[in-house]
């Protein structure tokens, strides 16, 4: 029987597992979260407000299909290798807990569906308590039923800001405003042409805009939080109008009283496992994704990839890609009639992803809202100037000289910003995401592996 490992239990991974099972494969699914669902279906059975979950029936169906699979949740995969077969190594147990058990998974093929996490660009004052990512605001609202502040400003870019604002409002925070960095002109150029391609997506966006109106939340394109103010926590934020390149327009700054700021400028794929498995990557610094062909196959024939690691397209795209990847990984054919639906959705969602990038993609002028001493690397407290000063050095030397990206998060939070600052200073940044240990694990756990 063909063994298929699925890395990640979000929409793409769940769809991949279901498709592989349908073809009779022996499926093992691994996810680091305490429960399945990834970030999209991040909820708690008793705490989560049902108004904050979407497509719950779909999730229940996918989870139900996993009865035939081996599922490891709370499992951090720290090593992934591929030769004649695939080997994944993980530690499973309570998050960062003691005595987690060691897992080794062997498979004939693997589907990498590791997803993406928030990309929050730095702003002066963003290390103050009360500033979170938009994803954190969403996760806390959905998973824990809490909000960080009573008066929150949401700032960044992309349609994700809309459900975040809605979640904050439903969980009890007043949302003072949603500041979308892209200008009205960019939004129109990205979203208005060929509206029929948007199909269900347009309706979804209209629903969120209606929710904003219901909660009297102003939506302000072409503006951003460019500074967060406060002594020991957020007390206010400075909002400015931006030009098309996201540069603040002088004289437009105004101070708004708030106690929380949620920042989200899109998403960045989690590439560690794919890189470790030798997958070719496409794109430049700041927007690198796993290269896949029409079969969702990567440059390694045993490795498939699906969902946000192949491009930011949302849950529907991830579900379709996952279904295709899982089916092919289990030995199915792309010409099989059962893939007709997923292939059609994938085609439509690729057009959606392209619009998303055109309308909301990060523009380079954002670095203008930083001061020389603005902390960019939150873990190590490294300022913009220190990164600029060593930006002509090769990446490794730059990291050692400045310490940017050498803290506990290993550049997962600051990587995009550091690379952009280096590039603008004339340097040539190269991949922050090559991490020999794929997930943070304890030294003792690693030492316990030496006998293997």
């Amino acid at each position, binding site marked *: 029987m063909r063994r298929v490992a699925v890395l990640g239990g979000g929409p793409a991974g769940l769809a991949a597992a279901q498709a592989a099972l349908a073809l009779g494969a022996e499926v093992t699914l691994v996810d680091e979260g305490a429960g399945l669902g990834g970030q999209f279906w991040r909820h708690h059975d008793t705490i989560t407000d049902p108004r904050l979950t979407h497509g719950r029936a779909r999730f229940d169906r996918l989870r139900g299909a996993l009865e035939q699979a081996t599922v490891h949740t709370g499992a951090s995969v720290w090593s992934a290798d591929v030769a004649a077969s695939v080997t994944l190594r993980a530690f499973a147990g309570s998050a*960062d807990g003691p005595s987690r058990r060691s897992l080794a998974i062997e498979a004939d093929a693997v589907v990498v569906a590791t997803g993406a996490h928030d990309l929050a660009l730095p702003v002066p004052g963003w290390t103050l308590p009360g500033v979170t990512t938009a994803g954190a605001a969403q996760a806390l609202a959905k998973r*824990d*039923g809490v909000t960080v502040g009573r008066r929150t400003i949401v700032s960044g870019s992309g349609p994700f800001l809309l459900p975040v604002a809605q979640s904050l409002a439903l969980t009890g925070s007043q949302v003072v405003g949603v500041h979308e960095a892209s200008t009205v002109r960019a939004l129109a150029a990205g979203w208005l042409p060929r509206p029929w391609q948007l199909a269900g997506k347009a309706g979804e966006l209209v629903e969120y805009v209606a929710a904003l109106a219901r909660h009297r939340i102003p939506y302000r394109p072409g503006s951003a939080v460019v500074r967060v103010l406060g002594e*020991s926590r957020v007390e206010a934020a400075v909002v400015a109008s931006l030009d098309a390149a996201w540069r603040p327009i002088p004289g437009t700054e105004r101070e708004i009283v708030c106690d929380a700021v949620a920042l989200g400028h899109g998403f960045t794929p989690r590439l560690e496992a794919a890189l470790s498995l030798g997958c070719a990557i496409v794109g430049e610094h700041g927007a690198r994704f796993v290269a896949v062909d029409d079969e969702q196959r990567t440059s390694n024939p045993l490795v498939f990839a699906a969902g946000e690691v192949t491009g930011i397209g949302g849950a529907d795209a991830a579900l379709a890609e996952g279904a295709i990847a899982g089916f092919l990984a289990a030995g199915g054919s792309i010409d099989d009639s059962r893939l007709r639906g997923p292939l059609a959705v994938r085609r439509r969602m690729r057009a959606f992803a392209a619009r998303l990038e055109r309308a909301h993609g990060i523009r380079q002028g954002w670095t203008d809202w930083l001061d020389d001493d603005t902390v960019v690397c939150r873990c190590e407290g490294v300022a913009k100037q220190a990164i600029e000063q060593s930006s002509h050095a090769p990446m490794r030397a730059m990291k050692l000289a400045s310490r940017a990206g050498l803290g506990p998060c290993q550049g997962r939070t600051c990587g995009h910003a550091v690379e952009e600052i280096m590039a603008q200073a004339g340097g040539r940044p190269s991949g922050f995401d090559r991490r020999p240990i794929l997930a943070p694990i304890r030294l003792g756990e690693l030492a316990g592996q030496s006998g293997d």
Partner: protein
Amino acid sequence: MIRITVDDERFEGRDGQTIAGVLIGAGRIAWRTAQTGERGVFCGIGVCHDCLVTVNGLSGVRACQRAASDGDVIEREVRA
């Protein structure tokens, strides 16, 4: 209902909440001392490590990932 202590202060939370969820629900948004000041939750999904705490003597636990258990004793971590 669960009860935990953080830096000797008592907090009540709902069963199933993360440690971060219990603290934020009680109005506490910072619980770690970093080089540049106080920190709490930033990414909320286990990526940034800004929310690290010591739980029942074990350091380096992400408060946003660990479900709070009744009786947990949590201490602040300081990085000079």
